[in-house]
């Protein structure tokens, strides 16, 4: 299946801003994060279709997955 991945903040460095990717069906957000070699502890928020989701949620075909760094402080 195809998904669109949007990266934000430091996750874009050396990667991309937005990319369409072919992934196996049933893939989770965590698997995409790992595939992109983003340390999971640095992931603050995951959105699927613009809605907050869990990192272990499965991605539907055509999903837009946004991966955001941690927000907070100062």
């Amino acid at each position, binding site marked *: 299946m195809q998904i669109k991945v949007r990266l*934000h*903040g*430091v996750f874009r*460095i050396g990667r991309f801003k937005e990319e369409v990717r072919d992934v196996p069906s049933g893939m989770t957000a965590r698997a995409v994060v790992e595939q992109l070699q983003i*340390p999971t502890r640095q992931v*603050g*928020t995951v959105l699927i279709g613009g809605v907050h989701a869990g990192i272990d949620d499965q991605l539907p075909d055509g999903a837009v997955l946004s991966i955001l760094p941690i*927000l*907070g402080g*100062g």
Partner: protein
Amino acid sequence: MKFLTRHPAAEPASVLYRRCTVDLRSGAMRHEEVPCRNLEDVLGGFGRSFQLLAERRVTAAYSDENPLIVNTGLLTGTNAMTGLRTYFSGYSPLKGSKKGLPAAIWSAGSGNFGAKFAWTGLDELIFEGRSTGPVYAVIREGSDGPVVELKPAGHLLGLTTHDKIMALRKQYDGAHFAAIGQAGEHWETNYMGAVALSTDNQLRSGQDKCRFAGRGGMGSLMGYKNLIALVAQVGDKLKPVSEAVKRVNINVIKGGGSTRLQPIKRGGGGGTWANYDVLQAFHAVPINNFRPQGNDLPEKLFRENVEKAYDIKSEACYRCGITCHNNVHEKKADGTRGEFLAKFDYEPLNLLGTNLGLHDPGQAAALIKLGDNYGMDSISLGVTISYVLSWNERHPEQRLLNGATFGDFVKIRELVIGAGEGRTPDVGRGSMRLSEKTGETAYAYHVKGLELPAYQPETNPGYAWAIAGGHMSMATYGLLTREGKSDLESWVTGITQTKLNIVGFDMIGLCKFFDIGKGIGTQMVVDCLESECGLEVTTGELASAVRRAFLRGLALELRQGYTKEEFTLPAEVFEKPNGNIKLPPVVASPAFFAELSRRVWAVFEPELEGLLPRLE
């Protein structure tokens, strides 16, 4: 501190703290060892100072009855990473109830002053009354304990925060400093004066890299008292680092809590500046007085864009491995680092940049630097100016002050300078007073008289119950944005249980970045207290002390005349929902807020009983 017990929660009176009370009018000083009343007293910071403030009936911030309390926390000046905090407490000239009474407030800052202060042997310094002429206080270590002296400070008047510190440095070797700027000197017309704290980096480089205790106008209170600066002169007294604290410090850096704040080259997020990127994903970066437009304008101040024209250096507080400072310098034609411009943190950058319609990093840096040099709280300054700009946009035929509008750097700069020099009281006295004067209060972005930080109130009804800074005394600012929580239950739990724990850091002497998500009721803090102070405290005891201290702050707000109706958000949030923010609007709907308020008070109210002493 003198510890006659290892169990301060059970035997607080067996812990004594060293206090000096200075009568600024007469110069008389009283030194005493004071037994603690409870664990909050032992921990220090606002946990202790608010109990002292609660013993007084203060009806005006600028009055003889209002003390300025300077203290530290139990871990200030220890080997615990980030243990550098100094606290300034008093009744605020800025924050106050509609009844006209000032609210109790504390403000915290890092820098090296706090550690030096603690190393003199003093735990608390209370300034009573008002000096007839400008003075500064010197705190030293004497043969019989700490010594405090008052010295004439006429030669410091009119200098910036940085210049005052550098002038004092010439006289006091091995010392660190706390100083107000011109804003605090103009306390009658500027209520948002901050206290600047010197840093090692500043004294070494000569660059104006102070840290600030900004919120609530404690610098203005200092100015009213004619107290221009503090000097703590003593040799460094760090013990060898124990294995236990070494482990904690490594955990602070590598355990995950501070990851997002560390430099990008170390795999971190690059400080709080990175919030721009996260919030922009929801179009929730404040722009033009907290009205996000659903466009890309905030991206102009993204780090990746600023880096194209400026050099950014990651630096740290003294002995802190988090390294969260992003100091922006000019970039010379050959690509090398030029002059230091300003430190870019999320709040000042947004509130003196994007939220004023300014999207040029150089202009934002210039305003941040000016605000710092005059010694003003960047949050209150930025938000009050954005109110002026918003009024002027709505009333083109009847503009306020110099007629500044969003994006007009020259005129906005004039307003900053005018406020700093005490010539523009409409800005210097904050957004609550200005909006009451104009009659248009709905878009004045303050809660209970204290301006909001750079998180949209539409995303954070928890602001209403913050007892000091909107985000630093109630950590609900990410509950919707980061955690995606939009149900009532999560918000009630957040406000009444988990997110109030953030205030614990403002008791114990640690920066919030030590472990911002968890607070101080953790094994890491327990280990530090055991190692550095020889105290046995449980995580539960720490958490209970933090809760009592928070609730005492809430009780004090009610005693200072706040009605429950004042625990609310700026009216524009309810009246004109902003459809550009891509987050569920439900948490800022009137119905949700009303029910949240009912549920929150149902939890808090029974616990407030008996927390404050009865006043005559």
